[in-house]
């Protein structure tokens, strides 16, 4: 076949250009470390890389959220731990104050310390987080939630802030103050016992328990001692529910409708005690009740004992409420940690997939580079050889 000399040269030049273009591509790839430098390099891979980058960014954000949630929950846990400490001290002081050896003066001293503790508790309940938000105000974090005007009222709401910790997983990063401090059931959580004001005997209501929850109907009852050794229980309508003999030697138990109350001391005929379903009382009211008992003069008798026994059950309920909240906070932090390590795994997985999709295989690229540069050298060599081959050179 005839060949045109100028076309042959042009072809050689074209070949060199192409090889140089290939080299430049590899240079770009090796420079950026990426196989895909623009979408046309691999359209499917490029779209996938966009998706994987997005998933990676999402997961990173979930980790940020978890960090922020952990900080909030950690603060709540610490704060609740202080609440526990205060309540423990209150309990110790109350038990101390109930001791028969105390005098009015010493009880007044205890009451003074309890007043301090009440103030401390109020301060803790109104504590703020690092952003100046009230910790226990529900969602009304901008205004002080616990306001003490005589008794303490709650100005927050029931809202709970959630955090997105993973796809589809939201975890609460707070608890409304109402459930921790305000809406605490009285008595043993099912019912509460109270002594009538006019009791003249020395009977004191002690331990209470629910023996058979199915038999308890949540009604209000009146336990009346018809004699120092006999009692009867009547319901709200005055109908007799149960009656029996009272004997402290046998534990002084009064049992009816699946519940029982242990009495001690000697009642006078006509003394009565109410057994009513639990209502809600704030921990501050409980404290106020205890303080009020300790500041009354000339007390220490069965009346105070009965009242303090009741408040002590209420205090135990408050301690339980705080303990439950702490357990729940711990459980949430656990869940966040688990989601956190899952997110770490996912991040690694996305990064691996992204790297597989768009990163350059350097071994491959280096071998391609040497191949391409040899090809370019060959093209250059061919060109220079061809240039020296002309018949005109021999016609001299």
């Amino acid at each position, binding site marked *: 076949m005839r060949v045109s000399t100028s076309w042959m040269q042009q072809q050689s030049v074209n070949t060199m250009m192409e090889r140089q273009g290939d080299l430049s591509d590899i240079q770009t790839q090796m420079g950026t470390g990426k196989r895909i430098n623009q979408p046309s390099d691999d359209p499917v891979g490029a779209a996938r890389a966009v998706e994987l980058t997005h998933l990676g960014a999402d997961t990173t954000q979930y980790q940020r959220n978890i960090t922020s949630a952990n900080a909030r929950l950690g603060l709540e846990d610490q704060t609740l731990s202080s609440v526990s400490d205060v309540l423990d001290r209150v309990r110790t002081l109350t038990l101390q104050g109930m001791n028969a050896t105390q005098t009015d003066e010493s009880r007044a001293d205890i009451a003074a310390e309890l007043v301090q503790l009440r103030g401390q508790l109020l301060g803790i309940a109104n504590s703020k987080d690092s952003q100046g938000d009230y910790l226990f105000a529900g*969602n009304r974090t901008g205004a002080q939630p616990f306001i003490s005007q005589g008794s303490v009222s709650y100005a927050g709401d029931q809202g709970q802030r959630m955090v997105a910790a993973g796809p589809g997983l939201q975890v609460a990063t707070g608890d409304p103050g109402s459930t921790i401090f305000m809406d605490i059931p009285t008595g043993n959580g099912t019912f509460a016992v109270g002594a009538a004001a006019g009791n003249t005997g020395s009977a004191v209501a002690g331990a209470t328990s629910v023996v058979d929850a199915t038999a308890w109907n949540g009604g209000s009852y009146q336990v009346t001692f018809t004699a120092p050794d006999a009692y009867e229980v009547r319901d709200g309508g005055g109908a007799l529910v149960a009656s029996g003999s009272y004997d402290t030697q046998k534990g002084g138990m009064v049992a009816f409708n699946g519940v029982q109350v242990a009495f001690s001391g000697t009642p006078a005929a006509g003394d009565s005690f109410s057994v009513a379903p639990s209502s809600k009382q704030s921990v501050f009211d409980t404290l106020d009740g205890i303080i009020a008992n300790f500041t009354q003069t000339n007390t220490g008798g069965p009346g105070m004992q009965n009242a303090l026994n009741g408040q002590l059950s209420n205090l135990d309920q408050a301690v339980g409420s705080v303990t439950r909240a702490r357990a729940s906070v711990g459980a949430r932090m656990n869940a966040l940690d688990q989601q956190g390590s899952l997110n770490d795994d996912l991040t690694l997985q996305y990064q691996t997939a992204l790297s597989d999709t768009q990163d350059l295989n350097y071994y491959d690229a280096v071998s391609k580079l040497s191949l391409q540069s040899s090809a370019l050298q060959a093209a250059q060599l061919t060109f220079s050889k061809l240039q020296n081959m002309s018949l005109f050179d021999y016609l001299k």
Partner: protein
Amino acid sequence: MADLLSTGVSGLLAAQVGLSTTGHNVSNANTDGYSRQQVTFAARVPQAEGRYYVGTGVDTQAVQRAYSQYLNSALWSASSSKGRADAYQALTDQLNNQLSGSSNLQSSLDTFFGAVQDVANAPSDASARGVLLARAGALASTFRSLSGQFGSLDGQVQRQLTDTVASINSDSAAIAKLNERIRASTGSGEPSDLLDQRDALIKKLCGEVGISVAKQNDGTLSVFVGNGQALVSGTQSYELGTAPNTYDATRLEVVDKGTGAVLSGRIGGGTLGALLDFRSNVLDPAQNQLGRAALAMADAFNAQHAQGVDLNGQLGGTFFNVAGPAVQAASSNAGSATLSAGIDDIGALGSQDYVLSFDGSAWNLKDGSGATVAMTGTGTAADPFKAGGLSFVVGGGAASAGDSFRIQPSRNAAGSINVAITDPNKIAAASALLGSAAGTNTGSGSVGALSVADGSDANLFTASSIVFSSPTSYSIDGGPAQTFTPGTPIVHNGWSLTLDGAPAAGDSFGIKANANARGDNANALKLGAVANLGVLDGGATSVGRAYGQLVGQVGSAGSLADDAATTQTAVYNQAMAAQQSVSGVNMDEEAANLVRYQQAYQASAQVITAANTVFNALLGAFRG
């Protein structure tokens, strides 16, 4: 023997022609479009000498170019395809570069939604809110900058369009002139160099636009473009021109300058074909797809934002401003009807443009490919035409038959998106309403989805209670009894509430404003979830995925263009090699020819010397 001298001279002259032709070939070895020329010799008519003939030398019959019409046509066609492929590749390459640059939309989206989550983590934190607004601004600006880059590419296409048309016109004129000279000189042999020049111009024209060429009997070539539109006919050339699009005055179309007929849709091949093809098949869809993502982003985020309340206790306002569908009336509209278009259902919105035209009795909607799209409705404000996620309201005066409007649903969206709020306190992170079941309820009913159905209702924030008189009947705020159907939302005072579970008689549910909830992040969490919310394509495609689709779409156009350019270059090289194997100059061949004619010249001179010697011998004989 006087003939020997003449024979020698004829050889001398023939060798001279051979030498100059070889010289011409060597000189033009690198001339583009040059065809090597060959000399044809023939023996002269011999002289009869009784019983035999004596040769009288050589005649130069012709100097012709080595030429194959078939190979040349193949080269023209390859040149046209290559011109198109090269221009197409250059343009898609630019578009790909723009998408690979720093203005990566996905990372802007991720950063933005990250900032939303940060607000959810600290709803009352002014700095987190400020950062969110800044990120929103950056996201909008990424949309605008990408759209702007697409726009500048569009501008570049327009300029190239004008330049290419000008170049085509000047080439057509030059071809017509050459036609004239060729026709004039056809009588005296073949004007090889003029023919070569014309062929070279045709080849150049092929690279600019797809053409067909017809040879006429008088030696002229006629050139046609599109559906037989003449560019050159004999010695006359006809110009192409550019004119504004009938719907959009800023967009140029290729027209026949004489008649004004639009040729854009009928031009294929060459740079011009590539420009028009790229514009309508790659750039416009890319701009539409980007706009669709912007619309979806703004629509979904605004809708969720309107469900919440800001730090001032106000319902969340518009967060992103974005331009809706663009309606363009045809410049030829004779009636006074006007059209307004809006988005009816973003999930059904496609990425194509529509044309709504009036045929004298009814309005018809066609999509970009010209297929008719069925519409519902009557086109009034109360009952608009609806199709493809859009709604159209025809207003103004009466329309004339043939009037039409073009609707570009998302063309301007990405270029116009911006953040509507500047006050960080106006980010609606909290939910607007609180729903709760009364503590004394005995049924299992609970407040499910509670949303703002009509933010303009004046009583939206008025506390209400729903009281059930029986498991299937309820009344709101002491109003008339209504039947409760599980799963059906209860709508009142602008809110909409779904009750889960089974309420019992006497149960009540309260709905009130979520007042003073600075720490509430419920709406911020839902705003964060918009990142992965299926908004487009009937809920299948999130905003980020729409961008991924755009990347894939542009990438595959680029990759196809790369492949086509490689293929067409190979085809062109092959055609060129075949054509050059016939018409190209080979230097070694010319060197050999040079030697050959040089030797022939020397030999002929020797013949003359011989004739002279013989003649001298004769003279010497007489001198004795």
